[in-house]
């Protein structure tokens, strides 16, 4: 299974509503996780990129500011909490996850 699909499966254990780079014409239900590719990290050896890891920006969105998504995402390996903000009455927790 491709790493991205593994991440999808992992996030679906946190909430069934997981969207990867969703198009604007779909209806998003909350609480949910929306994630997208953000960057990558390469380590070089032998004059080439020896190891390469993709980074995803994972956003947990919940009407409940005390919802469980934040805590579950925060304990994932390679997870780093970036910021929190509210918009349209929704609470957003943004994480960066290497996977």
């Amino acid at each position, binding site marked *: 299974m491709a790493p991205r699909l593994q991440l999808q499966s992992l996030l679906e254990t946190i909430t069934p509503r997981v969207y990867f780079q969703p198009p604007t014409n779909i209806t998003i239900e909350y609480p949910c996780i929306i994630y997208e590719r953000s960057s990558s990290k390469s*380590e070089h*050896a032998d004059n080439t990129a020896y190891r390469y890891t993709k980074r995803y920006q994972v956003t947990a969105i919940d009407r409940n500011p005390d919802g469980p998504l934040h805590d579950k995402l925060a304990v994932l390996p390679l997870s780093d909490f970036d910021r929190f903000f509210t918009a349209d009455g929704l609470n957003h927790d943004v994480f960066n996850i290497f996977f």
Partner: protein
Amino acid sequence: MTVLQWDQVGERLYETGVDHGVLYIPDSLGDYINGYAWNGLTTVTESPSGAESSPQYADNIKYLNLVSAEEFGATIEAFTYPEEFAQCDGTAIPEAGIAIGQQSRKQFGLSYRTQIGNDLDGTDHGYKLHLIYGATAAPSEKAYATINDSPEAIAFSWEVTTTPVGVPGFKPTAQLVIDSTKVTAARLSDIEDILYGDVGVDARLPLPAEVLSLFTGSTVAVNMVGANAPAYDDPTDVVTLPPVTGVQWKINGVNKAPGAQPALTAGQTSYVTAHALPGYRLTGDDDWTYAF
């Protein structure tokens, strides 16, 4: 007389990069047979030392300046290392998957390649092959750290000291460098076939004398297939080494003269290797294994 010019087109040279690391383990006679690819090589820092001046004074003047011997040392950094390097890092492997530390450290040889660039060709202008002899790795720390939000592989590092080997006509050395932009393509191909192996011929590290003979004179190719290959007589379990000009035979790492060898007995295995003498190079094959 011509006027000096600086930074002409094609003369803006620089060096960069490191790759094609190969580890060589010496046999009981000090020949660096059996090369192993060293993956994940990130840095080789050459650190020569010594050559320190010791001024001597007499007659109220600086009378002479004695200079101490120069030594070659290096630091190797890599994400991983060949399994065969374990014996050079004080680790014995009595059984597959079992490693015992704090054992004696075996010497090793190393080769690696660095790029030569210029303003016209970029880093494809050429490269240097660095050959290191008589290397001994010092114990080094391995910092295993928790996985965190920034994935990083452990960078292993080894401090290496060297014992020089003899070079005809020169002082003993532990380092030899071959510049691809200065030698002929044919000779470069020959040395790379030796360093990296070829079809049927294992990678090995030639000693400086052999390298010099390769570049200063013409080498004779010896095809080790057919009549030049060892023969094994199954009914008598006798290995016969043919006399081949330019070849030194070894069985299980020990020099052998051509001719019929003592018959193998139950459970014995004979690992026969052919080694090119200076001025010769082997093609086709260079090792054979016979079991009782």
